[in-house]
């Protein structure tokens, strides 16, 4: 640089400032290092969360099955024991009465035949009833209150009151029945009805999730809408920019929302499976400052006052700018997902809680706009681009349904659900790499379409 263009004091000023240094605070280097070498994203927290979810869920399910008294099973035992006791007692009383009354001995065979026919008729009416219908109970009740019962009433009959049996009682009944079967002392009614299903509860012997202990099987439809929180990570290919910087910032997400519809089957053992679809939409705005060589012609008219004169100059300049261009990009992702989920339902009175997980098949549709801004101008965008793209992807999801049963059909539900992608998506001709993760928090309703009751 020629110094003769400088005024008298400026050379001295240059000499003074040459090589001048200032003390640099530590925090600047920390900030540079943090941006240059960001902490590598750890995958283990996600895996740990999944493991915890599975572990806690599994433990909860096991505990629930181990300690909760199953009302369905209790009623089954109750029914079996009631029938068993009353019928066997009735048979004993019948036998005693017949043997004690000599006048009837001659008609014993006939009476027995009649009684047998009556019992067969009763058995017929019993087995004809659906096992889960109220008529089943009624038939049993009819038997105990029938004229036969009055005729054959004895203390033994009264001792066969409906009680909830303990497991030991179940066992003794089972052994007794087996012995009687072995020695062929079963009554015709016992033989015909083949009451042999007094068993111990199997839940202590089998995996709690897959043991079928009887109960309600439902098919329901769920619908929910709600906000979506996105955790998309976007990085730019450094090769994309040839000068100075490739800084990418994600700005505030705008309107994000999601909706879902699901068809769900709930088995009697509380396991659930569902299929359906989700629609999630995200809007983003990104800002990227990068290098661009921009050539433009500018005509400037300057009027200034120097000394005692006004001077007006008109200049035509070809400006070549580097590194001061800024891109703003907006993206709208619409994701149509088809989730397949498996879960387990825990119920406490009318409240229910259902952790679930599964895979999601996604179709992404993206609408994108972008504009280039000159950072030193405020005129506005010089370029506007719109693009659409559709692609397919597979993601995992894990969620939790919290619900409250309003009545036999309707429930209200809230479903936080996390979607995770292990694969990043790099766009062709646009070196941005995205990792897509999001959370939907949908609230809605659940409607029970069909309900059947199964007996173990």
């Amino acid at each position, binding site marked *: 640089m020629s110094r003769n263009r400088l005024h008298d*004091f*400026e050379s*001295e*000023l*240059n000499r*003074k400032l040459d090589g*001048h240094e200032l003390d640099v605070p530590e925090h600047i280097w920390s900030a*540079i290092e943090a941006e240059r070498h960001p902490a590598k994203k750890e995958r283990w927290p996600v895996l740990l969360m999944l493991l915890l979810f599975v572990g806690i869920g599994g433990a909860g399910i096991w505990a629930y099955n181990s300690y909760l008294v199953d009302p369905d099973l209790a009623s089954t035992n109750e029914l079996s024991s009631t029938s068993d006791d009353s019928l066997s007692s009735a048979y004993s009383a019948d036998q005693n009465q017949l043997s004690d009354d000599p006048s009837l001995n001659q008609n014993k065979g006939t009476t027995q035949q009649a009684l047998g026919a009556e019992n067969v008729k009763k058995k017929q009416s019993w087995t004809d009833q659906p096992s889960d219908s109220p008529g089943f109970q009624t038939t049993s009740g009819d038997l105990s209150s029938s004229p036969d019962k009055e005729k054959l009433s004895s203390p033994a009959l009264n001792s066969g009151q409906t009680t909830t049996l303990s497991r030991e009682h179940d066992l003794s009944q089972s052994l007794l029945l087996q012995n009687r079967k072995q020695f062929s002392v079963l009554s015709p009614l016992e033989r015909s009805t083949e009451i042999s299903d007094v068993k111990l509860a199997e839940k202590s012997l089998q995996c709690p999730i897959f043991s079928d202990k009887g109960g309600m099987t439902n098919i329901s439809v769920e619908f929910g809408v709600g906000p979506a929180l996105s955790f998309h990570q976007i990085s730019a290919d450094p090769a994309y920019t*040839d000068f100075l910087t490739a800084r990418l910032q994600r700005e505030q997400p705008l309107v994000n929302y999601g909706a879902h519809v699901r068809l769900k089957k709930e088995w009697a053992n509380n396991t659930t499976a569902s299929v359906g679809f989700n629609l999630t939409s995200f809007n983003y705005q990104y800002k990227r400052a990068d290098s661009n060589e921009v050539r433009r012609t500018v005509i400037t008219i300057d009027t200034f006052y120097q000394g005692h004169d006004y001077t007006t100059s008109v200049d035509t300049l070809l400006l070549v700018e580097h590194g001061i261009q800024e891109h703003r990009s907006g993206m709208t992702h619409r994701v149509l997902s088809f989730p397949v989920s498996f879960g387990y339902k825990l119920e406490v009175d009318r409240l229910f809680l259902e952790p679930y997980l599964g895979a999601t098949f996604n179709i992404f549709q993206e609408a994108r706009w972008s504009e280039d801004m000159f950072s030193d101008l405020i005129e506005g965008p010089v370029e506007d681009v719109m693009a659409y793209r559709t692609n397919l992807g597979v993601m995992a999801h894990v969620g939790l349904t919290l619900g409250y049963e309003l009545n036999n059909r309707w429930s209200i539900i809230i479903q936080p659900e996390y979607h995770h992608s292990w694969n990043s998506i790099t766009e062709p001709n646009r070196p941005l790499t995205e990792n897509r993760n999001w959370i939907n928090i949908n609230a809605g309703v659940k409607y029970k379409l069909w309900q059947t009751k199964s007996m173990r």
Partner: protein
Amino acid sequence: MDEQELIRGCIQGNRTCEKCLYEKYAGKMLSVCMRYMGSRSKAEDMVQEGFIRVFQNLDSFKFTGSLEGWIRRIMINCSLRELGKMRNKNEFFGHEYYSESSDMVGVISKMSADEIHDLIAQLPDGYRTVFNMYVIDGYSHKEIADQLDFGVGTSRSQLAKARNQLREMLQMHEKIGNESE
């Protein structure tokens, strides 16, 4: 470690090399940014942003000139860009000052570099930028006009105004110094 090894290490992402390079030039670059920005906190921001750019683009350094000059250019570009964002015409161009010229060499020779820094920092943004670019960093009026997106005439007038104001400030500084003695 010579400069070439240092640069290669930085390109490979070696943290030690990056830190060495930073420590070697950070003080000087803070001084450069301070002259342009006029405030310590803004200058620190520019040093941070500038060094990130330096590390990101070090592979494009051709070894044709000095590394210090290359880094200095990046720092100046960062500062100019920031000033451009902040630019408000009134604030940038400021008011006009004019005074009779006088020999200020003696005054400056008595001042420390920090005092000169403070003095330059008091100039309005527009004057300070042109003054720094022309007088200290050796840009031509054409280059200044290109960088700052205004006419060459404007660059010349801004420099003239900056010089006048700086002279006034130096006279004031001298006057205060004489009174205190």
